[in-house]
Each structure stands twice: as C-alpha cells, then as structure tokens.
C-alpha cells in the first residue's frame, strides 16, 4: 500500500507525544488525554496493517480498543472526582495515598 510509512510514522509520533505528555504533565486529566493520544497512535498502526494485509483482525482490535478507552474514561473520571474530594486538586503529585 502506498503511503504506508507515513501512517506508521504518524502512529509512532502520536505514541511518543502521548508518552512524553503522560510522563511530563502533572494534571491527571492531561495525563489521561495523553494516554488517549497514545491509544490513537496504536489504533492508526493497527488499521494500517489491517489495510495492507487486508485482514479484519486489526479492525476488530481497534473496536475493542475504543471500547476499552470508553470504559477507561468512565472509571478514570470517577477516580478524578474521588481524588478531588480527598486532596482538593487533581495533581498526581498530591495523590500519594499509598506512599509511606
């Protein structure tokens, strides 16, 4: 397939941007959004290979990843609300309940 390298490179770039964001930022919501960007990059790579090998597995995998991302959003936002009630912010540094 033509332009396959472009799609793969973009998937990789999105994954790396997401990784950098998840490691560098301290606000929990931005960390969550960075993880979503990483999932988007992975989805793109899955679809590129599904397209170039003409298989349905990659497309189905992307649907599963979307479902997991939706569940992650629901549970993650519940966690943010609890975090805000406990510590008054959603700074991941302040959330050190398990640290001793």
């Amino acid at each position: 397939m033509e332009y396959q390298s472009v799609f793969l490179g973009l998937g990789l770039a999105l994954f790396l941007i997401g990784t950098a964001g998840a490691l560098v930022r301290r606000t929990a919501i931005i960390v969550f959004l960075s993880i979503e960007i990483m999932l988007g990059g992975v989805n793109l790579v899955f679809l590129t290979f599904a397209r170039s090998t003409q298989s349905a597995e990659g497309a189905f995998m992307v649907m599963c990843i979307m479902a997991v991302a939706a569940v992650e959003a629901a549970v993650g936002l519940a966690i943010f609300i609890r975090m805000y009630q406990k510590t008054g912010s959603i700074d991941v540094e302040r959330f050190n309940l398990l640290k001793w």
Partner: protein
Amino acid sequence: MAELTILSFFVILSILSALLVVCTTNIVHSALWMIVSSLALAALFLLLHMQFLAVLQVIVYAGAIMMFILYAIMMLNLRMSSGPYRLWNLKSLGVAILIVFMGGMLGLAELMPETSPISGPFTVQAMQEVGDVGILATRIFSDYIIAFELVAVLLTAGVVGALALAKKDR
C-alpha cells in the same frame, strides 16, 4: 496528488493538535485540541478506507469521551493545570530515542509487501457489495463472538465500577 495533499494536511494537523494537547496550560483548551486530534485521526481512518471505524472514532472519541472530560473539568472547576516536571533537560535524549524509533519503524515498513493480498476479507469486490460494516459485522458475530461478548461484560463492569467509585463514603 490530491490524496497526498489531503494526507499531509491531516498528518500535520494531527501532530500539531497532539502537541498542543500536551503543551497547553489551560485544561479546557487542551480538551478542545484533543477533539481536533480525534477528528484528524478519523480523517486518516477514512483515507485508509475504514469508513465505519472513522464514524466510530468521531462518535466515541470526539463525542462521548471528550464530553465526559469537559463535564469533569466543569464539575471540578479547573482552569490552569499544574506546571510540568523539570524533565526538559532530558530533551536531547528524547529526540535521539525518537529518531532511532522512527528509523526502525520506517525500515520495518519498507520490508512490508507493497501490494496487498487478494485473499483477505477486505477485497475491492466485497467492499463494493457489503461495505466494511458488513465485512466487520459478519466477523464479529461469528469468529470473534467471545471477544465481543467480553467487551460487553467489560463495559458493564466499568459502569458499575465508576458508580461505586464516585459514590460518597458512608
């Protein structure tokens, strides 16, 4: 030529919006840029001829998940985020890792066959007859039925877990 122009536009848009999500200090702006990023990704899915997944991407990411996020931002009354960690002195190392990864991946991509096999389900004829929704649907409800049901269980468990977490302590 037109395809290349469209492709490069969406590639640049997607990278720029992803960078802006990570770099803006205003959380609301960050969430709004995330919507742009998901829409650009949906356009790229369209360029890969995956119409159904592009629609799903718009509905699930740009619609549902980002609405959740904006609700959370409004409920928690957040405006500015806390600043980044002091990790930027690792920038050169990060750039080096990025270049090595990119080179490796692009080399891998060159090894892939240029022409796609005709044996897979996404043939031109099948795409014209039933479309990619039809192809995916026949697979989901026959070969991948267990995984599909497990996704349903996961969604239920996620809803119950979110409710249990968000409830106040008694």
